[in-house]
């Protein structure tokens, strides 16, 4: 068996287990830590796909900034205590799993199953993910969406501050 395949299998296994952990753990802190593991493994996969800059961005933005935000909110709301919000014992989890499995089965049958026959190697150039190439594309072809994204982030900052500052009642 191919070494590449084995490494990918191990990383995919860890990512899948961590994804299940995010949903299954009752304690939100554990869910958050599982999410960190998942994002970290995804960054490895990005590196393995030669998308170096996006791998670094994944670690910086997701495992760095976004997860810190999540943990801050969990601490502020005191959601870390497991008894804070026990999940009800009803039929909802079972129904959710059935719906999810149905969705996965449908997409796998319609999209993945026909693709399994082809074993085409990657066609993009090996240096397609270097900072140089991404920066050049981002500031020439995609300059307008880039500026719009910055406006969106600005609106997000202003909105978050407004929501956090408002005194209710």
């Amino acid at each position, binding site marked *: 068996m191919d070494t590449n395949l084995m490494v990918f299998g191990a990383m995919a296994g860890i990512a899948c287990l961590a994804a299940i952990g995010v949903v299954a753990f009752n304690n939100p802190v554990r869910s958050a830590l599982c999410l960190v593991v998942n994002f970290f493994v995804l960054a490895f996969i990005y590196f393995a796909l030669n998308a170096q800059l996006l791998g670094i961005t994944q670690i910086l933005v997701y495992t760095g900034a976004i997860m810190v935000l*999540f943990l801050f909110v969990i601490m502020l709301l005191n959601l870390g205590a497991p008894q804070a919000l026990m999940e009800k014992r009803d039929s909802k989890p079972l129904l959710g799993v059935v719906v999810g499995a149905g969705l996965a089965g449908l997409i796998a049958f319609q999209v993945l199953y026909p693709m399994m026959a082809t074993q085409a190697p990657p066609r993009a150039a090996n240096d397609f993910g270097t900072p140089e190439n991404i920066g050049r594309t981002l500031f020439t072809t995609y300059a307008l969406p880039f500026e719009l994204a910055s406006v969106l982030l600005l609106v997000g900052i202003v909105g978050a501050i407004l929501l956090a500052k408002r005194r209710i009642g």
Partner: protein
Amino acid sequence: MTGVPLWMLLALGLFMFCTGAVGVIVRRNPVVVFMCIELMLNAVNLTFLAFARYSPSPMLSGEAVTQSAMAGQMMVIFVMAVAAAEVAVGLGIIMAIFRLRNEVDLDEMSAMQG
């Protein structure tokens, strides 16, 4: 990762997306629901990158392969930007709701039900 066929990467993305979707349906804690949305966005990012790297469409050739590879990565960057803004605003809304009602159970929130 040359020996890995495209469908395996897509299968991982599909699994993560469906796990996230199940979490959004099942969980009652809004912070965990946000985490599941992040999981789904990351699954989409992985799919974009896999398609960008492999460029499997037979209609693409030469320069078009490079363009499609860059377009996939640009989508990932913009998804990350939108996710960051969404998390900041969403967690702010959760904080505001918590201050108003002192509880954060999604099943109990029905103020917008008309």
